[in-house]
C-alpha cells in the first residue's frame, strides 16, 4: 500500500528525512515510533502530499505521490498531530464540508455522516457546535473526517496525543474496528505499548533515518537476542544459586532481592532453557523462572539510543 524509495526531505541545511525505504502491506497497521524531531511527521506530510520530497519517491496504492497527488488524496485519510476544527460549524456540517470536498454526491452524504458519527460514538453530538466538543471528541470527529471518503489508507500522526486515558481507550477501540474493516493504517505515537498491541509492524525513526523496521515481535526478538532479563524465584536462600550463576557464562548482570534473582542473560530462549536445566540439576529449588516482558518502549530506547543504522 505504501512504498518509498530513498525518500528524503531537507529544510535548508537540515535533513529531516534521509533515504527512507518503507514498505507497508495493504490491510496492515504500521507504527512509526521515534522521539520528537525524528522525522515521523515530515514523512507523513510527504505521504499526505503536503510536502514535496527533496529526493526519492513514494507510492501510495500504486500512485506516485508527487506525480499524482489528486489520486493519492482520494485514497488517503490524513490526521495531523495538531489540527484545528471549524468552530462555527456543527459536527454534522463539519463532516458534510469534507464530504463535499471529496466530491461525494449530496444524496449520499447524510447516510455517510450518520454511519461515521455512530462509528466514532458522537451520534448524540450531531447538532453540537464543534467548539463545544471536548478535546477527545474533537479528535474522534477528526478521525471521522478522515473516513468520510472511505479511504483505503489512514495516515494518523500521534492521534492519541493530549487525550485523557478514557478518550484514548475509546480512540484505540475505534482504530481496532477500522483495522478489522481492512483499512491500512500508518500511525505514529509516543504511547509505545499501545502501538505494540495494535501494529503488525513498526519502524523506528531517529534523526531522519529508519533505524529499524519489521514485525513487532521480530524487532523485539532481535533486540532481546542481545540480552534478556530473567527472573528466578527460589524456595531456598539465594546463596547456592548465586554461586552457580557466577560460574555461568553469558550472564551480564545479576541482582539479588531476598529469594528473587534478576539475571540479564545473553542469548535466546534456548539459552534460558539450558540455564534452567543446570540450576535444577544442581538441586536448586525453583518455583518460578520467567523472562520479564520487554516493553516496546525499552526496545525503542535501545534502538534509538544506538543512533546508528542497525537494520539487518
Amino acid at each position, binding site marked *: 500500500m505504501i*512504498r518509498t524509495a530513498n525518500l528524503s526531505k531537507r529544510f535548508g541545511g537540515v535533513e529531516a528525512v534521509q533515504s527512507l525505504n518503507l514498505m507497508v502491506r495493504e490491510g496492515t497497521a504500521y507504527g512509526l515510533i521515534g522521539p520528537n524531531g525524528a522525522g515521523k511527521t515530515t514523512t507523513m*506530510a510527504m505521504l*499526505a*502530499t*503536503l*510536502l*514535496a520530497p527533496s529526493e526519492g519517491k513514494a*507510492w501510495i*496504492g*500504486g*500512485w*506516485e505521490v508527487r*506525480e*499524482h*497527488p*489528486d*489520486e493519492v*488524496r*482520494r485514497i*488517503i485519510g*490524513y490526521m*495531523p498531530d*495538531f*489540527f*484545528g*476544527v*471549524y468552530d*462555527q*460549524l456543527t459536527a454534522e*456540517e463539519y463532516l458534510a*464540508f*469534507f464530504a*463535499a*470536498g*471529496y*466530491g461525494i*454526491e*449530496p444524496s449520499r452524504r447524510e447516510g455517510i455522516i450518520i454511519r461515521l458519527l455512530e462509528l466514532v460514538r458522537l451520534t448524540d453530538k450531531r447538532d453540537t457546535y464543534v467548539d463545544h466538543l471536548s478535546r477527545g471528541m474533537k479528535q474522534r470527529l*477528526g478521525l471521522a*473526517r478522515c473516513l468520510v471518503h472511505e479511504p483505503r489508507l489512514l495516515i494518523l500522526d500521534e492521534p492519541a496525543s493530549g487525550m485523557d486515558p478514557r478518550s484514548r481507550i475509546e480512540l484505540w477501540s475505534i482504530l481496532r474496528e477500522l483495522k478489522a474493516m481492512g483499512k491500512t493504517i500508518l500511525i505514529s505515537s509516543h504511547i509505545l505499548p499501545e502501538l505494540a498491541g495494535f501494529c503488525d509492524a513498526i519502524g523506528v525513526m531517529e534523526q531522519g533515518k529508519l533505524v529499524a523496521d519489521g514485525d513487532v515481535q521480530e524487532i523485539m526478538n532481535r533486540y532481546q537476542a542481545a540480552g534478556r532479563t530473567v527472573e528466578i524465584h527460589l524456595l531456598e536462600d539465594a546463596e547456592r544459586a548465586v554461586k552457580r550463576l557466577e560460574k555461568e557464562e553469558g550472564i551480564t548482570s545479576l541482582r539479588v532481592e531476598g529469594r528473587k534473582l534478576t539475571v540479564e542473560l545473553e542469548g535466546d530462549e534456548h539459552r534460558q532453557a539450558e540455564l534452567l536445566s543446570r540450576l535444577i540439576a544442581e538441586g536448586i529449588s525453583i518455583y518460578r523462572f520467567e523472562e520479564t516482558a520487554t516493553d516496546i518502549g525499552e526496545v525503542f530506547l535501545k534502538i534509538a539510543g544506538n543512533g546508528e543504522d542497525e537494520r539487518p
Partner: protein
Amino acid sequence: MNRWSRVWDDPVLNKEFRQRMRFARTPWILFLYLGAMGLLIFTYMLILQEKKDFLDPEMNRMLLMGLALIQLLVLSFVVPGLTAGTISGERERQTLSVLLTMPLSSGGIILSKWCASLAFVFLLIIASLPLYTAVFLFGGISPGELLYTFLHLLVTVCFLGGLGIFFSSLIRRTGVAMVTTYGAVALILVGIPVALFLIALFYDRFLDTSLQDIPLPIELLSGLHPVITQLAVFYGHQMGLDQQWRIDIYWLYVSAYALLTVGLLVAASYFLSPARWKKWSFFSSRGSLKKGPKDPG
C-alpha cells in the same frame, strides 16, 4: 451534478458563507456601515437644505460622487480586514493542512475564499443601494455615470480582495498579513499622489514649464489611483480628459486592476502550497483524476 450545481455545492464557498454569517460581529458590521453612510447622506442633505441648494442637480452630482468616494475609502479599510486573514487564519487555526489533503485545486480554494469574502462586501454594497435612491430624487445623474461608478467600485473591491488574499497566502501570520495589506492600500492611496506631485515638480523645474501637455508618467499614475479615476467619471471634462490626456484613465484603471486581481489570485494559489500547485488547474475547483495506478513495483 452539472457545472452550476457544483458551483453551489462548492464546499469552501458554503463553509465560508456559513461561518461568516454566524460571526456575532457580522450584523454589527452591516449596521455600522449602513449607519455611517446614512448619517453622512443625512448630514449632507441637511447642510444643502440650509443653503437652499436642496434641489440643485449639481449638488446632487456631488452627493453621488461623495457617496462613491466615501464608499470607496470605507471599503479600502473593510475589504483588507475581511480578506487578509482568510488563508493565514486557516494556517493559525491549523485547519489548512487538512484542507489541503482534499482533492481540491489550490486555485479552487483561493477563488472560493475570494468569492466568499467579496460576497459579504457585495452584501454591504447592495444593502447600501437604497441610500443611493436619495440621489435619484433630484436628478442630474446620468445612468452611464452611475454604471461607471459601480463598475469602478466593483473592480476596486475585487482588487482589494485579491490583495488581501495574496498577502494572507504569502505571509503566515494574520496580523502581519493585515498590516502589509493596509500598507499596500496606503501606498496606492497616498503614495501615488505623492509620486504625482514629485513628477509634476520634476517636469516643472527641469523639463517643461508648460503643463498644457500632461506628461505620460502622470497620466499613467493617475490611471492607477482610485480617487482620481472616480473623479474622472464626474469631472472628466473639467479635468480636460477629452482634450489634453492621451490615455483614458478610467479604462486604464479598470483593465489594469482587473489584470492585477487575476495575477494576485494566481500568485496566492501558488503560495497557498507551492508543493501542490499546478499551472493549469487554477480554474478547476477539483483536481483532475487519472485512471489506474502506475507503481512500477
